[in-house]
């Protein structure tokens, strides 16, 4: 084998290795992202209150994703696309809040749709506390942490069947939330 042939073979081997590595990296990235682009829980159909204002907003159907404590969380279909909603658990189909994002949900860039209620009690500061925590998260999200302004964890709630809820959160200021995967790796942080 000539020196030139050896060099050609070495370059070819390097190119093959690089291509294989690239495929591996691409597959790994895709497989990591995929669970963040899905909500596997399709729930079960419930009728939205007859004659309710929601129908006039184009809501076509509702699926009850989960009941957590006193709250029911819904996946909704509207004429504008998918929405999520919530309402009191004791009145199935009664919606009290609806969020209809335009564009894809969930995605790796937005794996959580937070329906939590925040409260401010001062006119002069933007400190808010959590009145209630709830929302919908992608398959790959196993817990949600609500953070204090200094970055410490105020509350951590598990995600089960794509839903999280905490009806009696601790008091004190909250300044955002973080989504974690099963290994405790941070997946997303609220804007």
């Amino acid at each position, binding site marked *: 084998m000539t020196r030139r042939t050896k060099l050609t073979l070495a370059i070819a081997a390097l190119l093959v290795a690089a291509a294989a590595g690239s495929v591996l990296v691409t597959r790994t990235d895709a497989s990591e992202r995929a669970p963040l682009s899905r909500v596997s829980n399709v729930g079960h159909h419930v009728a939205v209150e007859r004659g309710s*204002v*929601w129908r006039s*907003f184009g809501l076509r159907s509702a699926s009850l994703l989960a009941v957590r404590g006193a709250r029911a969380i819904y996946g909704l279909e509207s004429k*504008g696309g998918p929405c999520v909603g*919530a*309402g*009191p658990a004791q009145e199935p189909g009664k919606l*009290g*809040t*609806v*969020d*209809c*994002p*335009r*564009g*894809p949900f969930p*995605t790796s*860039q*937005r794996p959580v749709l*937070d*329906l*939590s*209620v*925040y*409260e*401010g*009690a001062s*006119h002069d500061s*933007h400190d*808010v506390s959590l*009145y*209630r925590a709830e929302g919908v998260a992608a398959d790959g999200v196993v817990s949600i942490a609500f953070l204090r302004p200094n970055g410490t964890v105020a509350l951590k709630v598990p995600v089960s069947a794509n839903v999280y809820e905490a009806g009696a959160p601790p008091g004190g200021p909250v300044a955002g939330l973080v989504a974690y995967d099963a290994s405790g790796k941070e997946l997303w942080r*609220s*804007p």
Partner: protein
Amino acid sequence: MLGPGTSTANGCWYYSEVCSGWGYWYLNGVSKTCYPGCDPYNGTNGKILYGFENRDRIRGNFTSYYGKRYVQPGELGMGGYLRAQVSWWAGTTSQINVAVAG
């Protein structure tokens, strides 16, 4: 347009806020556009708080995403004589269309 300093000048809870008059409101509906631009996932740099307020507190949900939202006072643990509100919270100015029903 809702940004730092935007006000309806009718005594809202925050300085940078638009709010309705007082009433026995049923629903607050907010549509946030992509203004001044969305990322590929329809997020904007403008974060808003939308909901209701009374004399003691303001409550609501946060969003910075393009889309439509509706919330009733009872969802926020509120009732009675209220104002519907949308507050600028952070980032760039948001373009919103908001309506309250009573």
